[in-house]
């Protein structure tokens, strides 16, 4: 899976491309966890993620938990309706801060 990460004034913006499912979730999780350093500020831009399976949801939650434990902050941006609905139905949504744009998410993260 293609995952771009760049630093924008102290906030790490991560842009995965493709589905996050049983095949890609392990790699996705490993890559993001590398970025989850103490006090890190991370925006996960999901604009190019069309589908997220239950394995994907789990990797997201693990990332969130890890961030919390090292006082880092992860904010989600541009989550499509399908993924948002799945997250809501399955109870994953309340754990996350979700913003409609990367800009809002950056503000939220910093």
């Amino acid at each position: 899976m293609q995952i771009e990460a760049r630093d924008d004034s102290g906030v790490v913006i991560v842009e995965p491309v493709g589905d996050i499912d049983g095949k890609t979730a392990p790699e996705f999780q490993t890559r993001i966890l590398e970025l989850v350093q103490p006090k890190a500020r991370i925006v996960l831009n999901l604009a190019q993620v069309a589908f997220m399976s239950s394995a994907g949801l789990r990797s997201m939650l693990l990332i969130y938990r890890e961030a919390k434990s090292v006082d880092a902050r992860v904010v989600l941006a541009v989550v499509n309706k399908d993924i948002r609905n799945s997250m809501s139905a399955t109870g994953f949504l309340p754990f996350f801060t979700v913003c409609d744009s990367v800009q809002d998410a950056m503000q939220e993260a910093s």
Partner: protein
Amino acid sequence: MQRIDIHPTHEYQGYRIRPGKPYPFGATLVPGGVNFSVFSRHASYCVLVIFEKGAREPLVEIPFRGMFQKAYSDEPVWGEFRIGNVFTMTVLDLDHEAIEYGFRMDAGLPRAAAGQPAFHRFDPSVVLMDPYARAIGGRDVWGKAPDWNAPFQHRSRVVFDDFDWEGDRPLEIPLEDLVVYEMHVRGFTRHSSAGLDEAEAGTYSGLRQKIPYLKALGVNCVELMPIFEFDEFEHSRWDEQQGRWSKMNYWGYSTVGFFSPKAGYAATGRMHDGTMVADELKNLVKELHRNGIEVILDVVFNHTAEGNEHGPTISYRGIDNATYYMLTPDGYYFNFSGTGNTLNCNNPIVRDMVLDALRYWASQYHVDGFRFDLASILGRDPWGGPMANPPLLEALAFDPILGKCKLIAEAWDAGGLYQVGSFPAYGRWAEWNGKYRDTLRKFLKGDAGETGAMSQALQGSPDLYDGRGPTASINFFTCHDGFCLADLVSYNDKHNEANGEDNRDGANDNASWNCGWEGPTDQAEILALRARQMKNAMAMLMVSQGVPMILMGDEFGQSKLGNNNTYCLDNEINWLDWSLQETQADFHRFVSHMIAFRHAHPALRNKDHLRNSDYVGSGYSDVSWHGTRAWQPDWGGRLLAFLLCGLHAKGGTARDDFIYVAMNMHWDALPLELPHLPQGARWHVFANTGMPAPEDIFAPGSEPELADQAGCLVGGRSVLILVGRPAGK
């Protein structure tokens, strides 16, 4: 440290495998792969069939016995992956999310022809669903017609069983404190008046969004009609005229898989992800618990969706017909369920499966209890005979994991076994009290001579449950089966034409009364009487000892147009019409106040039977019986009153007000002489169904004082409820 058993021993067409672990049955995620385990006593041949999700043709078919390749080499090697009667292997490096699986089995016997009796029905041309499948694909979106020609219809999936419960656990509310709401997941929010998005309507997620409504109503337990995977298309027909499916299996009393939530009830069903469906249901349970509401599942273990000799082979009968089903000496299916077959519940294998399933729901889904459909079947031996000490019922009662679960029996079956009052209880089992229902209905419609039976029913039926206590009695006027409350007071006879069986289906004996006109009318007098009768019913139910259960929609007085068997109607007749919350606001308010009254008064919620004596020295019996004259009940008439002494509440351990209830089912108003209260206490009016709203009921705690403390008039076909407490309190 890494495990040493994550390396393969064998290879088959590029798939790396090793001998599996027989327990637990089903497909389980293990380090490095998925462990498969399936029982068959009579099969000699078994193949694991793995599909890419949704694919028609398998990815691979791995036999449990035969020639393989030695792992990491080209060397051929014999392998047999079986322990006892269990076929088990671990397949490594499987993307568990991307696959579905099943089995083929055979025993080298002649094929049983469709429609013919047989002890064994092995057919290796059929891919069989795993009886322990934790999720099942194939009917992922409710009502979306499948490809009928696809060879594998109900497709086992693998589930990730972790979930963030955030500390949730079953609520363990004492049975006597429950107010149960029997409901249908889809029907609750499918109606457009529920105001939900199309994707959420009729789902677990939709139900979750309506939890505030349930909380406001005051119920603290939902009993979900079947949510085990079933096939809504079983017996369905395409209706050319209407341009839609008819005769859907809407209720779902026909289990396909005992470990799998109904995917079509999940908003996430369309994602074809078994774990997501499981997560959605778990999230619903978690949120209900957070709001103080327990979850009881209506479980159907008496039969499966495989029908009789003519039915489809989905799983059980292709895996081990003679183990899973009760068969006649000729090899026909016994039909104690009235639906074609009977699960062989007291066969040790099947007994363990039932136990495993219930433990799974209790531990993995935090379910608070179970209501067993046609539970008397669970007490029959493999030849159909009722047992005095049925091993399954005993095992359930004593099971450590189910130790705090509510166990509720529908204590009869379609084979004529009727055990209300005599269901083998082991100090654990409660029953749907069918006799309570019949007695209260007869009394409500004005039958004379029911007051004696009423006095028993109101006390939690000590005549039936002596030694078991009132909590053995689930009290109800109505349930999904039979008339709903509005129809109970609007129809003398069933009107089931919409079911397409010429009105032959459904019970004929309803103990209902139409109040003077069959069905809809605009005669104000009849409508007023019906409204009053509904209030009378709710009042009697909520002041009865035992556990009250109300049916979804009855709190609005929603009608089902006289249909008393709406099992096959996936339409507005069954869907909850939320607009009635406004149009029936008076009745809805009455019901919620009655529920609040029950919660407010421990004297109504005793764990043990009333003793009809004064054992705390209050000068009053815990319960006393009255007629138009205080202390003089009329055991032959149509009026009955009783007085609960609040100092006897909860066996004398709680303090409550005095509660006086007069139920006059005579058509005339009658004068009542009231029992005297202790000095300083005054009678206050909580409810009087003879009065128009809002004087028919008051919020508990704000009841006005009664003008004449010595007596009053109770209207014809009316219920009066008074509370006796110190003046000004």
